[in-house]
């Protein structure tokens, strides 16, 4: 493998690494004929991110002769190469990524001004291809917005906030902070932001829905999208199925796949802490209207009505989700776990590039077993 990125693309590459570092500990590198894929997944496997850089992104792109070559390495070591964005922008003219198969090192060379060369030799591990199972085309809801809108939106939420809830109706989008419903957090400040459909570049909502996902990864992608001024698209369905964040350019594509809270735990939270807002019939700006008495009425109502969009009989998450056949194993694992589980680790088949189906299943089983251990650990801690 030998690829060279020049000029502004070095910064794009650096930004991509930085946003991947928000996801997981390891960077998966997969050079193939149609481009270089940079991927990462978090430890609980509830978030996956992938940057696909096409050969045109590079000044020179040469895939390795060994087509099945894939590797992974600690993302921190790669991040260190692209550490300071400002100095990178100022001084680096060219970045070359080479595979030194003799020494088993990945060599990243930064060609700086005044003929300065910075060479980093990174050790790596062989690994299988990392690929999430998702299909954004099948999602019923699509939003597209300029990164500025999303950045301004996210700014209203505290940096410590982990999860955000997004509700959509036919003409509006609401974002609010998601708070677990234990006694402690009922004292937390609740923030809600309402955006009109007009602010989006593309707004196609076919079903009113409300999903909850992690903010950290979204922030990661926003950092990338903002620096490259590319619009962000969101593809999503009902709660429990993943939300896909996408940034596309002629020479690159980024997909972030994030798990969302499944319906049962989600609706509980929703009834407790949130009002009846997502009803499209409701005057959306009721707070901004000037009647002073409106809040008194609310004060006297002890029971808040549940949101209408929550189905009366919450389905098991297993029935809710559309899965490819190869994920059967995973679904079983999901059905067995306690109901208070947070995010579904849903979309991963870790797949060998070989077409053999049997091989594929075995691989995904292995990965799944370690997954559930991981999850249990994080939960007990």
């Amino acid at each position, binding site marked *: 493998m030998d690829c060279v990125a020049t000029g502004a693309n070095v910064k794009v590459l650096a930004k991509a690494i930085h946003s991947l570092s928000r996801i997981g500990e390891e960077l998966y590198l997969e050079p193939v004929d149609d481009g270089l894929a940079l991927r990462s997944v978090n430890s609980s496997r509830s978030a996956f991110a992938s940057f696909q850089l096409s050969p045109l992104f590079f000044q020179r792109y040469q895939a390795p002769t060994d087509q099945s070559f894939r590797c992974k390495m600690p993302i921190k070591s790669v991040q260190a190469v692209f550490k300071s964005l400002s100095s990178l922008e100022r001084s680096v003219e060219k970045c070359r990524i080479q595979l030194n198969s003799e020494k088993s090192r990945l060599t990243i060379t930064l060609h700086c001004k005044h003929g300065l060369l910075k060479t980093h030799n990174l050790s790596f591990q062989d690994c299988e291809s990392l690929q999430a199972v998702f299909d954004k085309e099948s999602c019923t809801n699509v939003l597209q917005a300029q990164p500025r809108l999303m950045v301004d939106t996210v700014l209203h939420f505290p940096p410590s906030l982990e999860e955000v809830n997004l509700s959509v109706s036919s003409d509006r989008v609401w974002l609010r902070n998601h708070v677990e419903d234990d006694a402690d957090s*009922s004292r937390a400040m*609740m923030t809600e932001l309402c955006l009109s459909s007009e602010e989006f570049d593309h707004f196609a909502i076919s079903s009113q829905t409300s999903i909850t996902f992690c903010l950290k990864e979204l922030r990661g992608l926003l950092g990338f999208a903002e620096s490259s001024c590319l619009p962000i698209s969101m593809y999503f369905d009902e709660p429990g199925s993943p939300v896909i964040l996408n940034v596309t350019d002629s020479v690159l594509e980024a997909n972030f796949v994030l798990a969302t809270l499944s319906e049962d735990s989600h609706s509980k939270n929703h009834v407790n802490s949130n009002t009846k807002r997502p009803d499209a019939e409701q005057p959306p700006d009721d*707070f901004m209207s000037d009647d002073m008495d409106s809040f008194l009425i609310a004060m006297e109502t002890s029971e808040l009505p549940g949101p209408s969009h929550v189905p009366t009989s919450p389905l098991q998450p297993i029935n809710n989700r559309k899965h490819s056949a190869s994920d059967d194993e995973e679904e079983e694992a999901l059905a067995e776990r306690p109901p208070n589980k947070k995010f579904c680790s849903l979309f991963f088949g870790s797949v060998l590039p070989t077409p053999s189906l049997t091989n594929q299943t075995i691989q995904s089983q292995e990965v799944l077993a370690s997954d559930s251990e991981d999850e249990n650990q994080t939960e007990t801690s």
Partner: protein
Amino acid sequence: MKFRAKIVDVGCLNHFTRVVNTVSKLTKACVLRLTCDHLYFVLSGRVATGGVSMWCELLQVNFFDEFQLEGVSADANEIFLEVAPENLSRALKTAQNAKSVKIKLTKKSCPCLTLAAELPSLSSLSRVVTHDLPVDVIPRRLWYDFREPQMPEFDVSIYLPPLKTMKSVVDRMKNLSNYLVVEANLNGKMNLKIETDLVSVTTHFKELGNPPWGEDGSQSSSRTHREPELMAETRVDIRKLQQFLTGQQVNPSRAMCNIVDGRILHLIFLHEDVSLQYFIPAVV
């Protein structure tokens, strides 16, 4: 109980934000007292908070374009709420370029102060962000705990030197000692002192001036025979003083302090429509 207020003017919004920021730097929780004319942020000295008390008074009409209040009853037309000023400060921070900000008392899953900001947007419709800040409504029987503190019978009252200077002196002294002695006399002199086993440091300020308190003020009446050169001194926790000097964003037009010898340091910041008083108890 009803409360609803609105800020439209961006200057007022910034000013209010600065006051709230100042308060939030001083305490995690305090009482917000609302009356028809004033807002007060009150911290009454408790052992748990290190014995400091705060009294911050704002003239409502100078901040709000609309202000409607119905207290608990006709004879007690006030509302006392326990709030986390940090939340309020954070909510206001996200509303910095808002076209208008409304603050309202609401009942959600718990009583809340709801702050709604109308933000500029890319479309014809405004963006609206609302923050629900959980508050505790303080019952009337406890109101007495949060009354205005009495002006102490001070020995010396003196104008403070420029706050930046004072802050940099205190910041440096903090590296050397945990306690600081503030002493002043009626001749416009003030000293900031630290004393440790290894070192004694004193910074002298002179010609600061002593505020002319009226007949009811104790400077001229009850202590008439005080020797002008005689220092009144109080030893305080240096962190409390530093916190106050660091966190303040009010930029007062008048800053002064009253010293009750060996008992209390009473700091007063005056701005056109804001007054902030901070009481630091003496330590032995």
